[in-house]
């Protein structure tokens, strides 16, 4: 519940800063900033919008779902809610994570669903100006291109910002597992 109220507060903050037509326009330096939680997978650092993060917890054993893609690491019981866990390393085609107790699951909200992403460590909270976010350069057909919303350089390190809606919401498209399903939106 505490978590919820915190989120609600944060969401309010979001609406007030993104409401460009409103009075907030008077504070451009404020509205142009966003906060991200960053975490590492191998050498690479990734960031997600802090507003979407619901919880961070240590790795626990999951129940595997049959006939799902490799990066789908099964489901776990988060206080009575069944939450699917995705392996970010595997999602980017770098092989499955050998999960240990030191690995971390970041629970994030993607639209009206909750998903967990398995990462190596959580590193930082960044406050980034929108103007500092760079586009992802056009490369070959790398998966990253499509699932990253931007790149940011902080103290010499590059942080890739995740577009989680693309990353997890449409996970069925590639595999065709549930292509026949009609999504109610």
């Amino acid at each position: 519940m505490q978590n919820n109220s915190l989120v609600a507060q944060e969401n309010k903050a979001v609406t007030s800063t993104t409401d460009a037509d409103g009075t907030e326009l008077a504070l451009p330096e404020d509205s142009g900033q966003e906060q991200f939680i960053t975490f590492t997978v191998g050498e690479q650092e990734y960031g997600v919008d802090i507003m979407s993060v619901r919880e961070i917890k240590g790795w626990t054993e999951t129940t595997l779902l049959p006939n799902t893609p490799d990066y789908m690491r099964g489901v776990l019981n988060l206080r009575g809610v069944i939450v699917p866990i995705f392996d970010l390393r595997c999602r980017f085609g770098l092989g499955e994570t050998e999960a240990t107790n030191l690995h971390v699951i970041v629970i994030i909200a993607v639209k009206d669903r909750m998903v967990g992403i398995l990462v190596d460590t959580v590193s930082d909270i960044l406050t980034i100006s929108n103007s500092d976010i760079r586009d992802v350069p056009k490369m070959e057909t790398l998966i990253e291109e499509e699932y990253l919303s931007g790149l940011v350089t902080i103290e010499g390190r590059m942080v890739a910002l995740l577009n989680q809606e693309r990353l997890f919401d449409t996970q069925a498209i590639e595999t065709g597992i549930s292509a026949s399903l009609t999504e109610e939106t």
Partner: protein
Amino acid sequence: MSTNDFDLDQFKATYFEECAELLIDAETRLADLQHNPENVDAEDLNAIFRVVHSVKGGAGAFSFDQLVGFAHIYEALLDRMRQGQIQITEEIVSLLLTANDILTNLIQAAQDGISVPEEDFVDVKNKLNLLAFGEDDSSPVEDTETTATSDPDKGLKKYLISFIPKPELLQHANEPLLLVREMKGLGDLTTTVNTDRLPNIQKLVSDEAYFSWNFELVSECSLNDVEEVFEFVTEDCELEITIASPDDTSDQADTQEVSETSPPQTSAPEKSLETTKEQAVAAMQAPTIPSPPPPAAPGQAPAAAASPAAPRVSSIRVDLDRVDRLVNMVGELVITQAMLRQQVDNLPPELAAFMAKGFEDLGMHTREIQESVMAVRMQPVKSVFARIPRLVRELAAKLGKKVELETSGEHTEVDKTVIEQLSDPLIHMIRNSLDHGIEETPEDRIKVGKPELAIVNLSAEHRSGRIHIIVTDDGRGINRERVKSKAIEKGIISADEHLSDEAIDDLIFSPGFSTAEEVTDVSGRGVGMDVVRRNISNLGGRISVQSRPGKGTKFVMSLPLTLAVLDGMVVAVGKEKFIISLTSIIESLRPAKTELHKLSNGADVVSLRGEYIRLVRLHRLFNIPNAQKDPSKALVVVVEIEGGKQVGILVDELLGQQQVVIKSLEENYDPVDGISAATILGNGMVALILDVDGLDAMARQVNHRSDRNDLENENTDTTLLSENSKSLIQTADISEEKVDIPLSKETQNLEVMEQN
């Protein structure tokens, strides 16, 4: 104000909800009247009157004028009926039924924000009008309105009224303020209050009346009118009314003037009075909507209170979300409790013994809480059944058949989730019975020696932890010849197939089957009984049919009592655990090698008492490593799937029987083939609930794709499915706690449970 709009919407929603409940009540009582018009229970009439009155009251508050207008006439007729001024005949009852249907339509229209064309119900309205008001002149019974207007006394008169309430006045839910207001409406009123009886504040009893009043009323009205104001309080006060000439000025020296708008006498007791009054009035007045004022005139309040009190409602309205939250939390509690229970076993024996007693109690209480919470969601099927009489009436009229509906067991309770899903299949079944079951015309029935009036019976009962809903008709029964030829024609069966009578009857549930010669607009809209069967099996239920040609047909729907929990068998395959619904399990067994056979298309079958049952290899469908692949060393759980067929699911072992709370997998992820839902086991791990129909479909696909077989060859196992799938490998060690005592692996032909 937007907040006000919001509030009003909320009240409207409450109002419509209440209307729905009220209409169900009225419908039930009307059905009683219909069956027994000679011997009418006055309470029934009163209750219907109250329903219509409440509907009208609420409608007034929201200005649904059309609804108010109709309800008013309907109410007036009912009022005359309950006063015995109108003889209750079959004709009247059927008029009431029609009126009730129109009332339902009007409420629906109000809810949808549309209006019903007047000509749709003007006939009925006129009939009601004639009965309710048309014969007023010949009626000797006094009518307050007519006497008021036809009063011969004219000219100003001055009434001196002494009104001394007895202490109980307030306790009887009367309100002096309302009387004062009403008198004020009659003419020029001067009020003086006598506070002599007012005790010391310490001795003051909040619901006793202490004040008395003297009124001077200058008005044109008759004495009757003035007396009428006090009509409902005469027993609770000393009242004296005298007529003086208008210029008479009698003074009361020892009294003080009180402003009418804020009489102090009511301010003290008002709060406590409010509640009792509301309770008493609630049943008669508009629905219990807190903020908009009751639409009835203030003077009507005492009238309502004085009428025979409605049966006390001892229930509250609770948002389903809240109950669901409670159910969820209790589910969590059960899981946590089971988890702790397992930990106790790890304690040193002396501590464990001490804890065990506590846990026994805790377990008992948790079970009780769970049962109580589930009971909160239980509702009588009455709410579904109550819609059927109207359906039957309308259909019978449309089809030109004479049908009577009998219902029983409408108080049988079932979970709210099931109730919601029950309505559609039931309506479909009733339609089917009326359209196809019963003979074309009443004459046809007479020809075969049956009474003209056909009977459709609808009943509900609890049987072995499930609810059975039975629809019986005394029609012509299933025409097996025609069903069979139709099935052959549609390619559902082959011409040379030999089928038992039961199997032929069962064909009516086949997809794309409809025997009606022409498509009527009643049933046979392209969807048939197959949809009913599918809907019911989606609910974890089954439907079967029994028919005797010429005598009638009987449909039996068997449904679980709840969709929130499930009795399951926990099974292990490799390191994975799955739940199979107990209701689908027929038996489990370990086949001998000689009982295993392979078909040419690669499917495995096991012979069981002369029948061949297809094997579904769970480990192969789900790519589970380290599972027992040899059926003669594993266990086969025989389950019943759609259409009454049986398949055998190959599992390593049975871990025990358990009630599990059903959790949605789709809430946060996409549906997975072969899995219907998930649950949480005692160790906090998620376990998947198998969808046996889905597994069967998957198994058939796999057989189509590969006719290779691998009873011995383990390597082919992983290559059978799509490349995106992976083998299930547990990446870390977990302490494998068995949920329950494992059943003996050696047990051969273990009968888990017998379906009856």
